[in-house]
């Protein structure tokens, strides 16, 4: 029995990261959770070999915690923000039509302050000048996947999620892709806490793993 490598990872990596772990030559154990929780747990001494967050701010915070074994952060994945609707919906031509397209329904997205995907969505909507109009029609969830599920279950009319989420859910369709410059870059920084973690990190950065990430809808890394 080989000692497994323990990863603390942002929940939105679930799926892709499982696949990558399965292809690794050591057993990989992954504890998923919100980025903030992950960061705090690692800071509190969780025996993780590798931590992957969905938020640069939390990684910065973690780097400031003076953990002796924590390596420098490296971006392992990137994502794109998309607007989704139940399958069969026509494409969204202009974000200004969003309110009309909701037709009384709600726009599902991550919580604007707490969930990174929600923060990016807010940045975009503010840039597009429709934030205040949409505010009364939001359904803000505690993680992106919950927003995705709301649309998939037709509880919400539309949703703002990551492209990687949309790719995983056959019940939804991407009707709009948000321009990258309308929000902060969506980055997944990782840092290792042990040599084993460093090795896994290298494996994730290798082309084979990156291909898996792309298959799951993540954007190619822009070095």
């Amino acid at each position, binding site marked *: 029995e080989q000692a497994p490598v323990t990863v603390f990872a942002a929940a939105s990596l679930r799926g892709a990261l499982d696949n990558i772990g399965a292809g690794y030559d050591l057993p990989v154990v992954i504890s998923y959770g919100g980025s903030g929780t992950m960061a705090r747990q690692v800071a509190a001494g969780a025996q993780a070999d590798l931590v992957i967050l969905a938020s640069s701010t*939390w990684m910065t915070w973690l780097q400031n915690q003076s953990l002796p074994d924590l390596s420098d952060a490296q971006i392992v994945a990137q994502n794109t923000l998309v607007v989704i609707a139940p399958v069969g919906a026509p494409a969204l031509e202009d974000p200004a039509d969003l309110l009309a397209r909701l037709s009384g329904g709600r726009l599902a997205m991550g919580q604007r*302050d*707490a*969930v990174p995907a929600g923060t990016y969505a807010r940045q975009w909507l503010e840039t597009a000048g429709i934030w205040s109009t949409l505010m009364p029609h939001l*359904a803000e969830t505690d993680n992106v996947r919950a927003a995705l599920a709301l649309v998939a279950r037709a509880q919400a009319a539309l949703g703002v999620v990551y492209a990687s989420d949309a790719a995983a859910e056959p019940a939804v369709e991407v009707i709009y892709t948000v321009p990258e410059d309308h929000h902060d870059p969506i980055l997944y920084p990782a840092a290792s806490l042990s040599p084993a973690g460093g090795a896994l990190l290298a494996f994730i950065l290798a082309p084979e793993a990156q291909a898996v990430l792309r298959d799951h809808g993540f954007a190619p890394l822009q070095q």
Partner: protein
Amino acid sequence: MTADAAAWQALGLSLWVAFWATLLAMPLALWVAWLLARVPFRGKWLLNAAVHLPLVLPPVVTGYLLLLSFGRSAPLGRALEAVGLQLAFHWTGAVLAAIVMGFPLMVRAMRLAIEAVDPKLEAAAATLGAPRTHVFARVTLPLIAPGILAGAVMGFAKAMGEFGATITFVANIPGQTQTLPSAIWTALQIPGGESAALFMVALACLVAVAAVVISEALARRVAARIAGA
């Protein structure tokens, strides 16, 4: 809006939700407690297990099930919305979530109290001519006042603290459905949000202390009446 204002807003919503949840759940919880304690019927174990379910299931699942039952795409949810009662993504839904989550606690407290009432006293009331409902209202109910009070405090406290089911069912929309726990959680998701969270945690503690102190004072009055002091 400042962080403080948001905190007060969340506190207000939570108090409002907890108030309604406690008020609405009490009669139903009392009825179920009475059924479980005093009425023999087939399938009682099922009701009993159902009452305990919200304890056993992760709150998120309960919230998700609520969404599936009362959401906009569910027939029930649509029917309620047609008569003007929107639950999903609405504070009323937070009330429902709080009711469901607090129900096992309320039922248990009331049931224990009912089971502790000497049936001989109820029999005595019956021989004096009191019909069943009067026996309940004039003998059982006052005697289980401590249990009802305990149930109410537990239900209220749970309603103040409920997070998982609420956020899943009604989301976490500041000013609309962001309860105190949601607001605290939100603050904790932001690096450096601890102080804002701490402030709200302190508010929650204050509410807990107030609820406990008030309920104990009430309980003491009830007990004193019976002890004749």
